[in-house]
């Protein structure tokens, strides 16, 4: 696999106060997509609720990309207001190009310091010359031209988004795009955008939050209760309409205490149920997640992680909810924690989450994050996977029904309300096999053993991790760190470095045997994650026998992990 960097182009659009950066970014991605390209887009905004500075970061390539690049080829700055705030997020260098308005004034320090070339265009002035003309369209025209994207693709994308209802707006846009392109015509092309390769099959444009929602519905989710919270809200918002179409219901609850209990109630009634939240909301669900464990009620909780602790930074990614997800419950409360390994893997992992929850009658927490959830990716339509998901229920029930019977698998057949003779009371109190409260040691230990056993004995198949490559050095990682890591590994391998990748989808329960197997021949493990205290590393230490040499590599958000950063660590890490 060749290093993707060489063939991709990264551009960032910035502007403030309603400059329409986000819309322009989306238009640009659509245009590139229509030319057969693949791509990735993330967004960054200032603290203001509306009208503040914003950045749309887009990477295009003739193949799918799952990570931002180390740097940007082009910055299209519609203005310079507060642009300095994005300095750490927009790495530029002397090979970069800055397209800016010639009337924008003094560029912020980090631009001039970067050594990037500057292409000044009188964007505002040109836009004024067109009735209804927008600065952003001038900019997109120029941008398209310098990277070699046909202007027409931009014009078509605008047409597709605003529709044919506003013919004047379309005309204005087309004019602006052309004017922009012309004013950049003299400039040498930046990067090499290969437009010759055409996708072999259908492609999708999808965010991780949408993918998670769709995966959940594919998995069988029929009821969702949730409370809005950034960056998880889109899971709920997307599912609200989708469920209405697909025979389900979504409730906005009064708070997260209510959402988790609503889904427990619905699931007790037989409906596969889910909620989505972020750290602060997950914190509020902790007590009732324990109830789901003890009452053996299947539920799926998607935690779209953001920078913590406390309210932290709602709009920035981090992998720092691993601890609470795995260890956050009081008492001994075994449950399942999984994490998607890429944006589109949110689909598979959400679907798998429903499967695990329903099959084992357990709460499952899926740890997505702001990067995975809110980034939009254009990629080949993912392969369809089907799990044979079925909750073990009882139909004809004889007297003496034991809801919490100790079975060889640890999973007990569940009576759904309505089944005559199956009446029982689900309980969070220590109970016997019938469900009757008990404080006897034998019942307490019997049920603790059963609940642990059902998770340990389950066959998670190949999905527990994605493993590739060989070598004496392995990277062990999880979640959204995988994107940049895969890319860094590809670069390193292209230079002859031998390295193995173990990307864990199943975070808990631990699979010591499988990891030992995967680590055969590995002498050194680089453990990689985006947290401040090395939560993943410590979790592995607690549960696995690791190779003699372990190199933990971790740092918190808010800045995204970049392939180059990982690449440096790999070069360090493979040194003898």
């Amino acid at each position: 696999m060749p290093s993707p960097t060489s063939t991709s182009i990264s551009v960032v659009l910035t502007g403030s106060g309603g400059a329409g950066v986000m819309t322009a970014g989306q238009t640009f991605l659509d245009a590139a997509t229509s030319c057969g390209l693949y791509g990735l887009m993330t967004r960054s905004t200032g603290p203001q609720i509306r009208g503040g500075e914003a950045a749309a970061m887009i990477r295009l390539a003739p193949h799918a990309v799952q990570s931002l690049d180390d740097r940007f080829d082009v910055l299209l700055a519609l203005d310079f207001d507060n642009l300095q705030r994005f300095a750490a997020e927009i790495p530029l260098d002397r090979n970069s190009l800055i397209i800016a308005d010639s009337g924008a004034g003094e560029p912020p320090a980090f631009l001039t310091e970067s050594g990037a070339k500057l292409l000044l265009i009188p964007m505002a002035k040109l836009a004024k010359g067109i009735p209804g003309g927008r600065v952003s369209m001038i900019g997109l025209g120029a941008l398209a031209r310098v990277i070699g994207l046909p202007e027409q693709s931009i014009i078509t994308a605008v047409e597709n988004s605003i529709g044919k209802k506003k013919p004047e707006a379309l005309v204005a846009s087309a004019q602006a795009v052309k004017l922009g392109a012309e004013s950049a015509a003299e400039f040498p092309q930046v990067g090499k955008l290969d437009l010759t390769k055409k996708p072999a099959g259908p492609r999708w444009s999808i965010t991780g939050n949408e993918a998670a929602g769709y995966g959940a519905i594919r998995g069988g989710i029929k009821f969702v209760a949730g409370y809005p919270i950034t960056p998880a809200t889109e899971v709920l918002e997307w599912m609200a309409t989708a469920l209405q179409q697909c025979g389900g219901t979504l409730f906005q609850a009064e708070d997260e205490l209510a959402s988790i209990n609503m889904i427990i109630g619905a699931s007790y009634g037989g409906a596969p149920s889910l909620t989505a939240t972020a750290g602060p909301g997950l914190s509020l669900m902790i007590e009732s997640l324990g109830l789901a464990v003890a009452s053996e009620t299947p539920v799926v909780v998607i935690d779209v992680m953001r920078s913590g602790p406390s309210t932290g930074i709602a709009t920035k990614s981090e992998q720092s909810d691993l601890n609470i997800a795995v260890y956050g419950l009081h008492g001994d409360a075994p449950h399942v924690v999984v994490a998607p390994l890429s944006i589109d893997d949110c689909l598979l992992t959400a679907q798998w989450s429903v499967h695990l929850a329903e099959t084992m009658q357990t709460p499952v927490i899926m740890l997505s994050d702001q990067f995975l959830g809110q980034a939009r990716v254009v990629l080949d339509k993912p392969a369809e996977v089907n799990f044979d998901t079925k909750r073990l229920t009882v139909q004809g029930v004889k007297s003496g029904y034991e809801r919490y019977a100790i079975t060889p698998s640890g999973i007990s057949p569940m009576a759904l309300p309505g089944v005559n003779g199956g009446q029982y009371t689900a309980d969070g109190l220590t109970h016997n096999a019938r469900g009757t409260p008990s404080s006897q040691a034998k019942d307490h230990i019997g049920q603790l053993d059963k609940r642990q056993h059902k998770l340990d004995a389950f066959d998670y198949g190949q999905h527990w991790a994605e493993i590739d490559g060989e070598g004496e050095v392995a990277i062990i990682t999880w979640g959204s760190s995988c994107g940049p890591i895969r890319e860094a590994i590809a670069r390193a391998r292209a230079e002859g470095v031998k390295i193995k990748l173990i990307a864990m989808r199943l975070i808990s329960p631990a699979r010591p045997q499988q990891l030992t197997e995967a680590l055969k021949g590995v002498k050194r493990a680089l453990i990689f994650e985006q947290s401040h205290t090395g939560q993943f590393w410590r979790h592995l230490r607690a549960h696995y026998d690791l190779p003699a040499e372990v190199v933990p590599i971790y740092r918190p958000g808010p800045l995204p992990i970049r392939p180059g950063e990982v690449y440096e660590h790999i070069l360090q890490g493979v040194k003898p």
Partner: protein
Amino acid sequence: MNMIPLADQAFKPADYKSEVKPVWCPGCGDHAVLVSFQRAMAQLALPPEKVAVVSGIGCSSRFPAYTNCYGFHGVHGRSLPIASGLKVARPDLTVIVASGDGDGFSIGGNHFLHACRRNLDMTYIVMDNRIYGMTKGQPSPTTEPDWDTAIAPGGTGLSPFHPLVIALASGANYIARGYSGDVNGVASLIVQAVQTPGFSFVQILSPCVTFRPDQQKSWKPLVHEASVPETDDPSVAARRLMSDDGFNVGVLYRGKRPAHDPKPLADLPPSHLEAEFAV
């Protein structure tokens, strides 16, 4: 509400009784509420397996396991959300929620507000003994300000609040008060609560003989039938409930709001959703 003679009933009260022996103290008002519940269910002729009883934590919240219905004994204060999720997923079930003044009005207060507002078709029974029984005698939001307890020596000094007005202001569609000493009266209030569409709230004065030994004697003479007929006018009800003495029993408000009953628009296969992602 007239009761059908026992002999004609498809179900008998005993059909709703489980084999589990209540942990309640001898003489606790909740024993009587359990009997009222059984009579009400028999009266309504609901098959026990089509009834789900949901609760939180407290003496009163032990209720579900003593019935022969489906039950969910959840965590403290969260019975209403569990019941709400269940009702939406399973509109075919009759959902009854059993709670106490601590579980329902203290820790569970927010869900009380929002369940009233959501107006799903269910019945919420709060056994109000103006004390935390299970944790051995701490004041609840309905406890008198001068009731002396270890945690609030000399009393809390706080006036009890008005759960019935709160229910009304939040949107409950049926509001009643009963007294556990009147087994048939309470049964009738429960029957009507189940029959009235939407969210029905029944406060039952149910003495705690152990931590409120004063109640068993003092309440009986205080309890009286409401002196005015029930109303469907929220502002009339607001005024009345705000100034009542807390001991007038009966149906105090019965609104006309239809139950909230969310339904999906279609039942298409998930693959239908993929069109949105295709480029």
